[in-house]
């Protein structure tokens, strides 16, 4: 059966007992409602000690002297280690991807050595019997710093007069790239209208409910290390820890059990985590590091700090002719290892305007080092910026021409039958459904009714806004994302699936679970492939000792890539089972099927249960022919080959009300139509959309890491950094369009990030839609009341 055989797919996915497309509940959810999760901080090991860190209070400072004698004598203290001491056992790392040409970053050590380069960078490690005692000793460590001028303004980062963060580089430039189709200037010159704007996005961060945590346990006798980690990519971490600490990779085991939210925050290499592993190596006992919330704000990666200048040329009918952007982003003092801090900007260059038909595009991206916290990939990497910029410019042009925003999009979105094709930025699209999604969205929103209501209310001085966004989303990445650039991050994934001795199915997969439902959808796929009930399927994830080498969960790859590996493995196991069944039932395998856990002659009830088949195969080999050996354990791998990424697409809408006296924005309702290919579990896709949209709302209206002119993070608490809370959030209506990808048999694309990518654009467009009659406009996020009041000239 060819994996692209449409008939076979239909038979499989549309079969009455297929789980594909069903909103089953998650088998692993109930224990979490009972408080039976196992997060890293819940795990206790014998002789375990705790580490806390002295962190730099300065954005940029020479570390002149570290005096720790007094601290070392304090109750419960086991060991104090400086950056230099950790460096004796831990190699530095460099966060550069070679395919991002010209990208540079110096080697980075887990703890600062000689110079601290951001407020919060760990400087000294204090290990004690309890976290509290470690913190007591942290307070007693005396570090003498000599403050240095700090580079804090991205706009000035490349000025010759600005502080150079790294002596070995001629400037604070990390990476720069230009995309140019060649005809932008000509198109701008001849255009009927050119609209221009500068849009600014505030730096913000992930705020996972579970702060980062790691528990490293080095066993001296075996020269092996077991690491309990809340990370998304266990195999990647296995490689990093082994290589940095000079351990054999097969003697490093990474275990990720329950993870309290990740969103990309937990996929990076944090000095405080690597140092905890190094300390375990040095001490020969388990060392736990559990970041507290203050540390999380200071050292979890930040993201989305961009200033984008944009220009859009249109003809008199509103057809988009050319788009130009200049993106400046300030990262931390190093590019993050191993995924690099250039990807976010690169995505902005690659993706801005992606849904649209315009032929000419020029984009320049500049990534500069700063003496602020590290920056790297966070859910929907770059998309919130790319989409917001394009969608804002489309609305601006539409407004100037007097064209309704929905109509403007209808004129410019790539036609649904135009695929395969390429974006102006060179992205290859297999098959998208922009128009279908937009039509469905407008119907769901009852768009015309909203416009009428808006118009009526305006007469009463009530300012409602309606905002739309169309977006593409990178999912199912091929090795062209990281592997090609030298990063040891797997784009392929694997599944080992077996029929166990009792007739149950156990599937071990290289993708991981952080609550989105990975284990559930893998079980759905396995059960569908094998014709069994889901309750018979156990899924193993998150343990490098137990699962095939894989990439973990990021870039919305688990369903599409992990799922395909599970599907192929499941189908291959089925074939083996049917072979054994043929032998046992004395018929041919092509006459057999598995239905409801029984191997049966097709169209009949004649056959045996899987449990019975397994019993024979495992225990009663004497009943089998001598030349037949059943293989009831199968492994299959999958990687995306035909495209660099398998794009998904969708459309979002937002209805809100702006209080023009206070500047407050009240979200009334939001909608999302997402095409993530074949949907495995509609409810879980909806919930990813909702959670993702609320994170997008955070970036659009509430969240910002506020730095002062000395590089001090001012709002590092949950009271001052505003994460969305329940009272202000709207209900969000979700719907689906399904354009299965032909790059796999499963046909599933990713769905985890689309909500976050498209929401800020829809919100900003809605606010500007509300303010348009007052000739006011906002061009920065988060859109705080003050930003609205300033736009209105009231503050």
């Amino acid at each position, binding site marked *: 059966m060819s994996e692209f055989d449409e008939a076979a797919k239909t038979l499989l996915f549309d079969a009455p007992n297929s789980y594909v497309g069903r909103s089953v*509940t*998650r088998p692993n*959810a*109930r224990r*979490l*409602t*009972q*408080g*039976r*999760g*196992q*997060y890293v*901080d*819940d795990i*206790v090991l014998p002789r375990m000690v705790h580490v806390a860190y002295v962190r730099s209070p300065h954005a940029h400072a020479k570390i002149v002297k570290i005096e720790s004698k007094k601290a070392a004598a304090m109750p419960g203290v086991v060991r104090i280690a400086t950056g230099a001491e950790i460096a004796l056992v831990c190699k530095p790392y460099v966060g550069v991807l070679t395919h991002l040409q010209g990208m540079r970053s110096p080697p980075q050590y887990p703890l600062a050595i000689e110079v601290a380069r951001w407020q919060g960078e760990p400087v000294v490690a204090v290990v004690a019997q309890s976290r*509290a005692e470690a913190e007591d000793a942290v307070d007693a460590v005396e570090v003498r710093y000599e403050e240095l001028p700090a580079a804090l303004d991205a706009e000035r980062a490349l000025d010759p007069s600005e502080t150079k963060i790294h002596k070995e580089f001629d400037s604070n430039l990390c990476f720069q790239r230009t995309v140019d189709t060649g005809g932008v200037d000509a198109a701008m010159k001849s255009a009927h209208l050119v609209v221009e704007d500068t849009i600014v996005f505030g730096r913000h961060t*992930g*705020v*996972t*409910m*579970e*702060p980062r945590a790691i528990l490293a346990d080095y066993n001296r006798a075996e020269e092996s290390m077991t690491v309990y980690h809340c990370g998304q990519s266990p195999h990647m971490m296995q490689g990093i820890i082994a290589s940095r600490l000079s351990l054999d990779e097969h003697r490093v085991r990474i275990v990720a059990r*329950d*993870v*309290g*939210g*990740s*969103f990309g925050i937990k996929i990076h290499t944090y000095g405080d985590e690597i140092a905890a592993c190094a300390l375990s190596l040095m001490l020969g006992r388990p060392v736990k590091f559990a970041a*507290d*919330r203050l540390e999380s704000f200071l050292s979890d990666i930040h993201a989305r700090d961009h200033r984008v200048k944009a220009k859009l040329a249109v003809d008199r009918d509103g057809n988009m002719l050319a788009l130009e952007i200049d993106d400046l982003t300030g990262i931390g003092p190093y590019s993050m290892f191993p995924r690099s801090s250039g990807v976010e900007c690169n995505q902005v260059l690659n993706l801005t305007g992606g849904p649209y038909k315009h032929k000419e595009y020029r984009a320049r991206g500049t990534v500069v080092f700063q003496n602020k916290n590290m920056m790297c990939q966070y859910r929907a990497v770059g998309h919130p910026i790319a989409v917001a910029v394009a969608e804002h410019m489309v609305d601006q042009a539409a407004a100037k021409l007097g064209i309704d925003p929905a109509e403007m999009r209808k004129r410019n979105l790539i036609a649904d039958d135009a695929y395969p094709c390429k974006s102006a930025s060179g992205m290859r699209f297999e098959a998208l459904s922009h128009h279908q999604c937009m039509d469905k969205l407008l119907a769901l929103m009852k768009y015309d009714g909203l416009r009428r209501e808006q118009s009526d209310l305006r007469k009463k001085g009530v300012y409602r806004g309606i905002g739309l966004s169309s977006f593409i989303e990178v999912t199912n990445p091929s090795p062209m994302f990281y592997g090609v650039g030298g990063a040891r991050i797997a784009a392929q994934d694997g599944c080992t699936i077996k029929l166990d001795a009792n007739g149950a199915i156990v599937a071990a997969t290289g993708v991981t679970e*952080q*609550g*989105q*439902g990975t284990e559930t959808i893998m079980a759905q796929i396995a059960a569908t492939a094998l014709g069994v009930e889901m309750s018979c399927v156990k899924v193993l994830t998150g343990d490098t000792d137990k699962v095939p080498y894989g990439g973990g969960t990021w870039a919305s790859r688990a369903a599409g890539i992990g799922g395909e590996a599970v599907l192929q493995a499941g189908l291959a196991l089925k074939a083996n089972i049917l072979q054994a069944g043929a032998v046992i039932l004395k018929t041919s395998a092509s006459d057999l099927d598995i239905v409801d856990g029984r191997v049966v002659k097709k169209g009949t009830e004649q056959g045996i249960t899987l449990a019975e088949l397994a019993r024979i195969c495992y225990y009663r080999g004497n009943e089998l022919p001598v030349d037949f050996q059943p293989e009831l354990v199968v492994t299959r791998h999958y990687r995306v080959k035909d495209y660099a990424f398998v794009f998904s697409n969708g459309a979002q809408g937002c209805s809100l009300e702006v209080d023009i006296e206070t500047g407050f924005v009240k979200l009334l309702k939001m909608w999302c139509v997402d095409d993530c290919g074949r949907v495995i579990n509609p*409810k*879980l896709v909806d*919930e990813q959309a*909702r*959670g*993702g*949209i*609320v*994170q997008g709302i955070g970036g659009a209206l509430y969240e910002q890491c506020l730095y002062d002119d000395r590089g001090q993070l001012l709002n590092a*608490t*949950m*009271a001052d950094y505003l*994460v*969305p*809370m*329940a*009272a202000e*959030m709207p*209900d*969000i209506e979700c719907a689906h369009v399904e354009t299965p990808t032909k790059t796999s048999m499963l046909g599933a694309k990713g769905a985890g990030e689309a909500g976050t990518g498209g929401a800020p654009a829809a919100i900003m467009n809605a606010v500007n839609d509300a303010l348009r009659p007052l000739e006011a406009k906002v061009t920065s996020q988060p859109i705080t009341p003050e930003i609205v009041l300033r736009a209105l000239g009231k503050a």
Partner: protein
Amino acid sequence: MKAAAETLEVSLTVNGEAVKRSVPARLNLADFLRIELELTGTHVGCEHGVCGACTLRVDGEIVRGCLMFAAQADGCTVDTIEGLSDSREIEELQSAFVLTNALQCGFCTPGVLMAAQALLRDEPNPSRERIREYLSGNYCRCTGYQAIVDAIEAVAKARAARSVR
């Protein structure tokens, strides 16, 4: 009157069981439960009382476990998510949460369930808006809150329907 001390004896009831321990004065109630009693269902998310992950019940009312010291719980009755689960007190809510997928990573969930139970005890039939308002003291980063509101509303409606019969 006893002089101020850095270590104290506390006697309290946790999930119906009498507990007696010697504790450092500075050990907060959440850490006491998690570390001393190995009741790890109460989670620590911020240690400044804002996120709600540590919400538990003391003498029948929900409080932030990170803002009380174990020493202050002397003589008190404490209920954690484990107790509410084992006694089946919140079984209906837990089932509704699973059904509507009102949890993803599960880290905020014990605190949310505590708050939900407190709300429904005081207000048996809250509106969606009221549920959102009450739950505003519990941060969730995964769900976007809607499924949580759906679950609590569903339980309230089911109870209301049953009481009519």
